[in-house]
């Protein structure tokens, strides 16, 4: 069919994708390209168009316009040959209550020409101990692991993970991240949607930041300023004004700020060190696009914050 071009080309190509639900335009011209073997993150708030985009790629929805190729094929054709090569973890996909993970995996494996061993998949998903428990007795986290296992059992080349860790406790999230990393190590291409910055940072080789149905920025997470090294230090100064600084080196900045404050005999009220929220990143990205030097509302901290931010960029 598409021959060697299809096999060596990108895993996913999306150009100028549009999708409208009635009056609401969910996707307004998205372009992305996912390379083979990479973990690609679609990062954005709820309602950004992530799930719509992914469901078009999975073959669940028809696009209004634009070009889409998944493993060289148009997913809208819903060919069985294509579905044999992809694995889908839906945001909320149920499973029969009265069968066990082992039985479900055995059944799912029969849909694929070259499935993985059920035992191996159970182990990879961390379900070996629950393999013979009916799924209605599994916990939410265990069911999510079963979602992963069912998507993996066909040994797909490309795996879609739609918000794989939403609602997880921190421990379960770490476990899911480990599973995703092990999939990457197996050479799988993964398209992941998330609204967690740290998840995109921890897992994705590249991310597209999506908002209101458009891609705001695309690239490796650190280069987009969503890196884990990006910290925000905030406090109230003696006049009660909120002062914010952004830095790559919070230790040094805190040392300097606290030394100066102690030397002046002041306290730094409401002192916090945090990471920027997704919203901050959007604001920064949209501000960058509209005006190169956004005015800082924090008054006297403006030069310092801007300087810290500038130095962060210059290191790249």
């Amino acid at each position, binding site marked *: 069919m598409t021959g060697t071009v299809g096999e060596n080309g990108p895993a996913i190509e999306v150009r100028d994708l549009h999708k409208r639900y009635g009056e609401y335009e969910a996707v307004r011209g998205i372009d992305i390209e996912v390379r083979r073997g990479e973990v690609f993150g679609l990062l954005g708030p709820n309602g950004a168009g992530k799930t719509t985009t992914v469901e078009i790629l*999975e*073959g669940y929805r028809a696009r209004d316009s634009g070009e889409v190729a998944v493993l060289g094929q148009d997913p809208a054709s819903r060919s069985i040959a294509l*579905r044999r090569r992809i694995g889908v973890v839906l945001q909320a996909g149920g499973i029969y209550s*009265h069968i066990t993970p082992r039985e479900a995996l055995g*059944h799912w494996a029969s849909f694929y020409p070259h499935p993985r061993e059920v035992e191996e998949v159970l182990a990879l998903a961390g379900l070996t101990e629950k393999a013979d428990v009916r799924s209605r007795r599994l916990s939410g986290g265990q069911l999510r692991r079963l979602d992963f296992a*069912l998507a993996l059992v*066909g040994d797909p080349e490309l795996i879609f993970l739609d918000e794989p860790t939403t609602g997880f406790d921190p421990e379960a999230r770490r476990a899911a991240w480990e599973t995703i990393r092990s999939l990457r190590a197996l050479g799988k291409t993964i398209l992941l949607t998330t609204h967690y910055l740290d998840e995109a940072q921890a897992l994705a080789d590249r991310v597209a930041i999506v908002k209101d149905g458009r891609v705001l920025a695309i690239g490796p997470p650190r280069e987009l300023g969503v890196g884990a090294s990006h910290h925000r230090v905030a406090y109230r100064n003696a006049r009660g004004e909120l002062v914010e600084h952004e830095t790559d080196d919070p230790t040094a900045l805190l040392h300097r700020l606290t030394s100066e404050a102690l030397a002046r005999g002041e306290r730094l009220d409401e002192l916090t060190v945090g990471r920027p929220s997704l919203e901050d990143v959007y604001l920064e990205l949209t501000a960058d696009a509209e005006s190169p030097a956004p005015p800082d509302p924090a008054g006297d901290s403006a030069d310092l914050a801007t300087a810290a931010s500038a130095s962060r960029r210059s290191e790249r």
Partner: protein
Amino acid sequence: MSEALTLSWRQYRLERRMFWRNPSAAFFNFVLPLVILAGAGAALSGNQRQLDRLVPMIAGMSVMSTTFTALAYNIVFLRERGVLKRIRGTPLPTISYFGGVAANAVTNTAMQIAIVVLAGRVIFGIGWPQQWGALVVFVLAGVVCFAALGVAFAHAIPNFESTAAYVNAVFLPVVAVSFYAFDSSSAPGFVRTIAAALPLKPLIDGLSGAMVTGSSLASNLDALAVIALWGVFGLCLAVRGFSWEQRRT
């Protein structure tokens, strides 16, 4: 093709396994018709003419409950739980999935009909069915018709909580009208007209002919035609409007 058949068979086996593991499904399929038969049979005991009518009525209702009711429930439940959407994302051919589901419904119906036939022979003294061929034809036609209508009707049900209300709003009046028209020669004309236009009364007529009176298939072709028309209507609606996902509200 053979692969699609193999996958149908696997889906069928999975459906059977799940059926036996779900106590309420097994109960409604086997115990309920027996309870109704036993209760009504006791009330009518000794009145052979009434018993002769009761057995095909229960058989017809069994066909409707194992297909129309059971499929509407299942489809709505699986749709709401996201199981259908998950299946939709796999390479399992749609035809194989529905083949397995339909074969499961046929099995349940066959078991119920067997129970009713046995009870008719052993308890109610109506003997073995007179026309086995006609029995098979009417049961199969009834299964296809009511299964299609059940899948089609599932489209109209907004969520699982309201399934019982929606299903019973159809099931109970259809059963009541059809039983009345079949059982009572004094039923008003409009009741007879309505019942004759619905698929259950013709099915009971056909089953009665096959199980009790021994009238030939040829003499019940008009009944079969009504069932077939409803079947075609149901299949069109079932295929056209089928939704693999819960509607967004």
